[in-house]
């Protein structure tokens, strides 16, 4: 048994620097001669830009450069890209409205950047920005997810008639229609999946620097995937060729999806640094972040279920509209389609599923992947619909789930919506969750609460997600513009310690610890002698980054495979040194041993021999440094059952989550403490969506009403209970480490569990998120 290997709740190695103020975030980086950029953004949701006068700003004190969109075009800098082409109805691929780095013709949302002012200080840049004169003609705007495609709605882009970027469908419409025609009973629910602002603790930031001596551009930025940032800015935006372009994502304080994408400000810092030949820094303030970070979710949906007389699901129909915001971002069009639609079977055997999804453009910030990305939307509608269906059938919500679960012995299970699940035991996780939550004792607790004037409710959520994104060929065939493999390099230094380069990026996930534990497990090197390096294109090989709960499920296998290569080479070296046949060498816990003897050699000795090859096997290269690229054959499918119990004060609508029980199947846990932390964070995210977080644009003006923490409510510790977290693992068929991914589960599972509990407490069919006190109070009033 290797110490601190797989399964050890080792304290996080990175926390020493984070907890002692030694973290190095992008805004901590200051380069000699640095200047500061400030963006002039549209105050209007929709307006023609008649003229932009930057003359006065150019002469303002301290201003060193003022640039507009044409300046970037003159340098052949390309616009921001949409990285997916999704084929919709009639074989029509999604429209891609062009987006310049600085918008030129018209502003399409409040916060759309138009001018950048660069000055010696941030205050001077802001002063200069106030001297920029832009003449606008305001246009009517639309911010409505359901109304953007209505007749007469203001048009954002000529390229998207009726503001529709894509009409997409999935599944067998005829089979679903037939199921409904033959159904004994049907259930339906109309719901809104509320828009969220991700609000990573660290706002976005970038520092661009250009070295005229080497013609190299360096960009420090808040990124979940620095190699992909470099690729996009190099291949599509012409910022700099890849080999002359270093992109560094140092310590990053949370991403949750919002730091996947290439943003205007990042391109500006990299480009302008060369233009003015001085470093350029931009750091978002929180208000700017609200306006300009990619938002998440924002669907309006009708979901229907057809059932036979026993409550077996025989068909499901979903009609939905997704708000893409003003422009399509890197992943955005793939989220409400591929990442949403492919999860609609959930944990159930529903044989026929049909989804119609319309993606619309509105005068709001772009919407893209946010923790869960499509899967929370799918899970929410499905798990709400299942509860409504239970009501229609007069069945307990647990019972209707059991009747429809895919059974463990049916794995692998091909769903009617593309995904083929490789593992899972949904009955097991539900049974455990119900036991841990004392589901059977609920009615007594409900009665006791009633005596105190409180309404108590309990809600379930049986969720599944597709993580470990993703098999390159599969996503490629669906229109995603990249491969989603991952890479690792395991380098022994001559003294026997190890540097691991991963193509993933840690921005809160604890990779430096968990990956070191994985290497310890495989190579037997003590965990303190292993360093994990990530986030710098100048250090280590290309990698695809961190999102979609992929880092361990895909990147971890690359590390493990690189370790296997190390061991394979080590065997050759050990065999030569120990004068044995290579086949007789066994490796365990850091030692190469000749089978059946006490002749042994530590992996450190092998490493030293590899770098000082005085006595060395013929034909073997010196050095002990192996690289592995891994492309998964399937997604991974974490799943589980969550139970939420709430107590409502009907006089005010105030709600307390009195118990939250999570039972998840993440397969093997590398570091259970980190996993539990990820579950807690995900639950806070999901409960935040369910109860607190609502991004609101004013219907008339298009202004962002919830533009600060004064109005946008993030979850705080006192909003949350002490979580009961447990596991019911199964073994995935497609993952050699047995891992599945855990970072998004809570955000996916929690919203329906919470809303199902509220609906149960109030005895109503549905209420929309966020279930604020007033929303709950009104529902309670209507129900009583």
């Amino acid at each position: 048994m290797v110490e601190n290997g797989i399964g050890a709740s080792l304290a996080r190695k990175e926390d020493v620097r984070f907890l002692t103020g030694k973290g190095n975030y992008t805004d901590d980086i200051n380069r000699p001669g640095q200047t500061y950029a400030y963006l002039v953004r549209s105050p209007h949701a929709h307006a023609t830009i008649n003229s932009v006068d930057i003359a006065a700003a150019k002469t303002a004190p301290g201003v060193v450069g003022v640039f507009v969109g044409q300046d970037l075009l003159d340098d052949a800098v390309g616009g921001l890209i949409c990285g997916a082409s999704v084929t919709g109805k009639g074989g029509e691929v999604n429209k891609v409205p062009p987006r310049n780095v600085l918008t030129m013709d018209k502003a399409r949302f409040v916060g759309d950047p138009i001018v950048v002012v660069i000055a010696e200080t941030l205050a001077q840049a802001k002063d200069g920005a106030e001297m920029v004169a832009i003449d606008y003609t305001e246009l009517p705007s639309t911010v409505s997810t359901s109304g953007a495609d209505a007749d007469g709605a203001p048009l954002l882009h000529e390229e998207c008639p009726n503001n529709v970027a894509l009409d997409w469908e999935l599944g067998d419409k005829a089979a679903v229609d037939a199921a409904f025609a033959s159904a004994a009973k049907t259930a339906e629910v109309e719901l809104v999946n509320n828009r969220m602002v991700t609000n990573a603790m660290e706002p976005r930031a970038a520092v661009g620097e250009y070295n005229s001596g080497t013609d190299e551009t360096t960009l420090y930025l808040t990124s979940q995937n620095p190699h992909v940032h470099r690729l996009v800015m190099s291949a599509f935006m012409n910022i700099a060729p890849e080999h002359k372009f270093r992109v560094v994502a140092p310590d990053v304080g949370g991403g949750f999806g919002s730091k996947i994408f290439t943003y205007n400000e990042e391109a500006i810092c990299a480009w302008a640094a060369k233009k003015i030949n001085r470093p350029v820094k931009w750091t978002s303030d929180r208000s700017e972040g609200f306006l300009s970070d990619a938002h998440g979710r924002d669907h309006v949906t009708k979901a229907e279920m057809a059932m036979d007389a026993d409550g077996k699901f025989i068909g499901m129909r979903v009609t939905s509209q997704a708000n893409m915001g003003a422009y399509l971002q890197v992943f955005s069009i793939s989220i409400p389609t591929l990442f949403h639609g492919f999860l609609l079977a959930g944990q159930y055997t529903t044989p026929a599923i049909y989804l119609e999804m319309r993606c619309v453009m509105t005068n709001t910030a772009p919407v893209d992947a946010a923790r869960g990305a499509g899967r929370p939307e799918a899970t929410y509608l499905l798990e709400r619909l299942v509860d409504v269906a239970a009501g229609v059938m007069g069945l307990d919500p647990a019972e209707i789930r059991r009747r429809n679960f895919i059974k463990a012995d049916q794995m692998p299970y091909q769903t009617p919506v593309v995904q083929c699940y490789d593992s899972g035991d949904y009955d097991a996780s539900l049974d455990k969750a119900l036991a841990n939550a004392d589901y059977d004792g609920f009615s007594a607790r409900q009665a006791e609460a009633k005596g105190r004037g409180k309404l108590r409710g309990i809600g379930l959520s049986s969720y599944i997600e597709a993580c470990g994104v993703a098999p390159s060929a599969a996503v490629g065939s669906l229109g995603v513009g990249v491969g989603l493999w991952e890479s690792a390099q395991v380098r022994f230094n001559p003294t026997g310690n190890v540097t691991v380069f991963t193509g993933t990026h840690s921005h809160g996930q604890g990779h430096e610890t968990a990956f070191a534990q994985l290497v310890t497990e495989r190579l037997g090197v003590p965990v303190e002698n292993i360093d994990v390096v990530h986030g710098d294109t100048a250090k280590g090989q290309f990698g695809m980054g961190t999102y979609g709960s992929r880092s361990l499920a895909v990147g971890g296998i690359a590390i493990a495979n690189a370790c296997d290569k190390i061991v394979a080479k080590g065997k050759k070296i050990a065999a030569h040194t120990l004068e044995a046949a290579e086949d007789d060498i066994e490796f365990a816990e850091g030692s190469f041993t000749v089978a059946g003897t006490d002749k042994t050699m530590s992996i450190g000795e092998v490493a030293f021999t590899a770098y000082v090859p005085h006595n060395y096997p013929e034909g073997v290269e010196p050095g002990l440094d192996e690289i592995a690229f891994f492309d998964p054959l399937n997604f991974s499918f974490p799943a589980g059952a969550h139970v939420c119990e709430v107590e409502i004060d009907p006089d005010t609508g105030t709600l307390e989550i009195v118990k939250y029980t999570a039972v998840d199947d993440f397969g093997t846990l590398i570091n259970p403490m980190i996993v539990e932390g990820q579950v807690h964070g995900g639950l806070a995210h999901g409960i935040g969506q369910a109860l607190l977080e609502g991004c609101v644009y004013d219907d008339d003006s298009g202004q962002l009403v919830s533009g600060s923490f004064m109005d946008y409510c993030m979850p705080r510790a006192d909003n949350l209970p002490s979580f009961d977290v447990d596991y019911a693992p199964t073994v995935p068929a497609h993952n050699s480490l047995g891992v599945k991914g855990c970072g998004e589960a809570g955000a996916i599972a929690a919203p329906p569990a919470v809303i199902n509990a509220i609906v149960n407490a109030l005895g109503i069919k549905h209420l929309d998120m966020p279930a604020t006190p007033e929303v709950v109070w009104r529902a309670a009033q209507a129900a009583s």
Partner: protein
Amino acid sequence: MYDFNFQSASSIDDAAAKLSAAEDGTVMAGGQTLIPVLKQRLASPSDVISLAGAGLSGITNNGDSVTIGATTTHAEVAASSDVPAVLRSVAEGIGDAQVRNRGTIGGSIANNDPAADYPAAALGLGATITTNQRDIAADDFFTGLFETALNDGEIIKSVTFPNAAKAAYAKFPNPASRYALVGVFVAQAADGVRVAVTGATDCAHRGPRLEAALSGNWSADALDGITIPADHINADIHGSAEYRAHLVVVMAKRAVAAAG
């Protein structure tokens, strides 16, 4: 923020002198509202005159009332054994620890935010606001949205709260900002029952209907059936006028119950 002259006042008179000498000056107590406004470039005073060194901090209790110096922080009030429990609880419920460690009672009352807690306490207890010019009864002080009876150049020196036989404050916090969505302060004061409501309208105000009901019967039940019309009640994304009007009565009942 824009550039300004920063001045430190050594006394309230010095502050008033500096203020009158400034082109477009403002005084700063704890700065918990002013600093964010400056950072957002929403104000551009020529001079910011700090009261931190003006000797206006401190708490004295003479047995009949407690007088709290204008620059006494919320945290100091919350922790003081010289302060009645009801006022300590008001201070304890303001903002977060950072705000409570910097924000002051004088600043809060002078700012008169429509959702601030201290104005309700001042009205509810019938406090007297002492300035460098005069004494002003709380009933006359809060005049409108961020408006008070303070004249130009007038600076709060202290606030005196008379003892009340019974008093309590019930606050329904805005989930995001934790300001009062609605807060109701009730008291059996020397001059009778007082009820003050914050968060619901332009600024904190007395609740005559609630006072009348409680004057004859000091109990939560006395407020049964009272409805507050939703006209003139604030509405925003956190609460409609109807909901806030409803909460006024609920919070009043809870305050009475808590006061005992």
